[in-house]
């Protein structure tokens, strides 16, 4: 975690549970991270690891019941935003933190013009006149590169393609100049060429407005392209946290290494058979006592089954939740180290 800058958003020990008919699911089990001003933090992980639940609980969007934030603290510019009154929370949402979602086809109200959907946010937060809000909505649409914004502003979502709708979502989320933009898998539902455009657009807007961004994705390619810092999540916990270079080139946690070998490469020389991570994530109704990755980890040791490892400082601002960083870990660590060295060598070549 960047100790040099004062973080704009600090999340500590966040725990979220859901009551279901099958029992209580511990979806997020103690997540810490910090977001620096103007930086992008990517949260990566497979489906069901708690990425979306984490950010939705920051926004107070967890449906409750069945959801419950059982502990933790979220500080925005030093101010606690968990447990705000609904009214105060509404002043944070949309104004200080903007959010865009995965599926632009269903995330816009089908029976309201896009203009109204954008001006609604502006009017609620900034209290400007209808005409002024409309003017700003048109400007926003131009900023997200929607052609003929002046006519498009009065159209309905069904008259837009998926990529265009995601642009509108972006325009809506930045309408009140939020300090933080949360993008929850913003390109997952789009086809590849559109993905690139949307990512570029997000990057431009972020740079121009010096916004901080939390980007949730399961696509390591997107991470490499967008992120400054990366948090790798597994079974409701962050297992590795570090700068994008560290995560990609000096992966410390076996899960991150596994994710990387499962990622397709563009370069033909490096393209080999993709190696999937065997097995499936643990049952979060009853999370394991030890390391959640134990069953799938090629380097598992006895201690891993017994106790959950803490986050170790592997390097400055690079943390990893794995027992192999313990000084007593020997045999399997050797294998892992050589494994890592090999990858580093490949990348340097």
């Amino acid at each position, binding site marked *: 975690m960047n100790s040099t800058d004062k973080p704009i958003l600090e999340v500590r020990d966040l725990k979220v549970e859901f009551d279901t008919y099958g029992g209580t699911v511990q979806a997020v089990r103690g997540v810490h991270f910090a977001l620096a001003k103007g930086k992008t933090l990517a949260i990566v992980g497979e489906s069901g690891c708690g990425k979306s639940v984490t950010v939705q609980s920051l*926004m107070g*969007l967890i449906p409750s019941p069945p959801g419950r934030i059982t502990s933790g603290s979220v500080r925005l510019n030093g101010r606690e935003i968990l447990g705000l009154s*609904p*009214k105060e*929370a*509404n*002043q*944070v*949402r*949309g*104004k200080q933190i*903007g*959010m865009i*979602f995965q*599926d632009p086809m*269903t*995330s*816009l*109200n*089908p*029976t*309201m*013009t896009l203009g109204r959907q954008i001006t*609604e*946010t502006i009017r*609620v*937060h900034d209290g400007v006149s209808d005409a002024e809000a409309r003017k700003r909505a048109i400007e926003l649409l131009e900023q997200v590169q929607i052609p003929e914004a002046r006519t498009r502003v009065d159209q*309905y979502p*069904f*008259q837009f393609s998926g990529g265009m709708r995601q642009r509108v*979502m972006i325009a*809506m*989320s930045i309408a009140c100049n939020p300090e933080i933009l949360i993008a929850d898998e913003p390109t997952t539902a789009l086809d590849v060429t559109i993905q690139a455009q949307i990512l570029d657009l997000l990057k431009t807007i972020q740079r121009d407005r010096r916004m901080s961004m939390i980007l949730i994705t399961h696509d390591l390619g997107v991470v490499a392209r967008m992120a400054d810092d990366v948090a790798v999540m597994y079974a409701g916990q962050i297992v590795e946290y570090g700068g994008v270079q560290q995560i990609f080139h000096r992966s410390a946690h076996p899960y991150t290494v596994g994710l990387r070998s499962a990622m397709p490469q563009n370069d033909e020389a490096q393209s080999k058979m993709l190696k999937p991570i065997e097995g499936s994530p643990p049952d979060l109704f009853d999370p394991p006592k030890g390391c959640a990755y134990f069953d799938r980890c090629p380097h598992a040791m006895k201690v891993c089954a017994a106790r959950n490892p803490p986050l170790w400082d592997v390097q400055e601002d690079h943390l990893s939740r794995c027992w192999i960083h313990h000084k007593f870990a020997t045999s399997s660590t050797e294998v892992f180290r050589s494994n890592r060295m090999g990858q580093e060598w490949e990348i340097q070549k």
Partner: protein
Amino acid sequence: MLKYILTRLLSGILTVYFIATVTFAAMHLVPGDPITGNKATSPEIRANLERKYGLDRPVLVQYGIYLKNMVNGDFGISFTQQNRSVNDIIRSHFPISATLGIASILFATFGGIFFGALTGISRKKIYDRSIMFGVILAISVPSFVFAAVSQFFMTELNQKAGTTLLPVGGWGGLSHMILPAIVLGLGTLAFLTRLMRSSLLEVVNQDYIRTARAKGLSPTRIFFSHQLRNAVLPVITVLGPAIAAITTGGFVVESVFAIPGLGRYFVQAVQQLDYTVIMGLTVFYGAFLVFMVITVDIAYGLIDPRIKVSARSA
């Protein structure tokens, strides 16, 4: 939009034509005729009457005359009510039925949306349970039972109060309308409540509601500008059939409350096999319903922008 309305009107006219033809055929297939009544008629009188009403001519010719007159807006003369024309019956009694119908449609629609929304958004189970219990009751119990029961209780109330709070029969001012309109609209109200409830529960979990929350809108605002409009759409689609249900239900309620509406004449006419009145009223009601359904569809287009444009491009 104009093209859409024209197409709908054209198909509506076709529907009315079919209704007219089927009614005509049915009338002539049913055994007996209006002249065979309580009183014994001599063959001479019978022949005279048949000539007067054109019943002595071939069926196809009668059909032709019937269609021609109908196009001119003339439904003929009643067989059983002396020299009274069907048009006259409609003119003097339809406004009463229509007023009652409109009152109960309004009651059912707004009531249904209100109660449906209440059960849909209320976190308290008790509201939901009690309203849903009422809904099942209102759907299962036929309107004539409600009519009689409401009359009974209203009479009791009037006696207790020592004055007529609400009249339990007849037709006059607004006060006469309240009880029958409620009884008539109750079933439809219950049906719409259920529809609105399930529709709202579906809308509440939509992604765009989450978006609205992420924008920092207040729950009230989200409810009125995002949930309600989308949830009301399915309710509007069934308004056409609901109007039909209320109109036909009106026959029974009108006779229980002794309201001089069109329904009573319809029932009477069927009992007496009064050809012209049956055919006239059937066609009139058919045309009315077709018109209402088209109106509802156009209204739907106004509320849901997606319908309007697809109709324009069609």
